[in-house]
């Protein structure tokens, strides 16, 4: 019996709880999208996408624990790095026109 199957309350295991948490973060992502779409400035959008990326990393990490798939953490790591790269690239683009990397 793995840790994920450990019962928290009657009929609810730790894995179930983690899945609910992941679903909650996924719902929050739709809310964060509002700032990315509405803006109004580019900085708002960059920040919103950066938060969305961090949110995705959290969802992937929780899913990795809930579904007992450690390989999900590798993808979460790749995402954390790419998220940083994306924020840097867009920020640099908005500050100095023509410079991306």
């Amino acid at each position: 019996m793995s840790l994920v199957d450990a019962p928290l309350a009657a009929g609810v295991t730790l894995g179930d709880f983690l899945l609910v948490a992941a679903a909650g973060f996924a719902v929050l992502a739709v809310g964060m999208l509002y700032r990315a779409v509405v803006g109004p400035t580019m900085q708002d959008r960059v920040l919103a996408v950066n938060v969305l990326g961090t949110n995705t990393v959290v969802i992937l990490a929780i899913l990795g624990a809930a579904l007992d798939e450690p390989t999900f953490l590798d993808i979460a790591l790749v995402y954390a790095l790419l998220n940083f790269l994306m924020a840097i690239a867009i920020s640099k683009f908005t500050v100095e026109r023509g410079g991306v990397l």
Partner: protein
Amino acid sequence: MTGALAALGPAGAPVVAQVTAIEASLFAFVVLTALFTALARDVLAAVIIFGAYSLGMAALYTFYRAPDVAMTEAAISAGVTTVLLLLTLAKTTRIDHEAAFESVNLPAAGAAGLLFGGLMLTMGDIPAVGSPDAPIWSNPDVTQWYIAETYAETHVENTVMAVLAAFRGFDTFGEAVVVFAAGIAALIVLHREVFA
């Protein structure tokens, strides 16, 4: 879809409900980002929202146990495509617009809707995930042959890799030709003679 995912949890019903909540919110997120990418008037805003789209898409791929596809989506779509689009924007001009959203071209939207409807009609013929009627299970002679003979035939340890590069070699060769042709076209446009 739910059939295969039900197997994730020990006892069906509650897990399926939670899993569907994750799926539903990820689908809503992906559809919304795709819609806003298409409708955003400002190109830079569209590029940024497109980055968010690929974030959701990669999470969805991971959720359906396709981590390799998720990794590719993350690296290519979120990383390389964003930077390439920004570089293109830096080389060209970005016009400031009054309106936040593009007005919808109705004939184009109708054509896209028809294509979408046509594609959705074929969905019924796709076997469910893990279904015993799926072609991959109903032809065990073929699938087992690849598993048994791959190493002897190609000396590649990973069967998926062997199918891509050896058994489907001509297909991959065709892809390489397409990429090479695109490179030549870029050279012609840039008035260069060498890739450097």
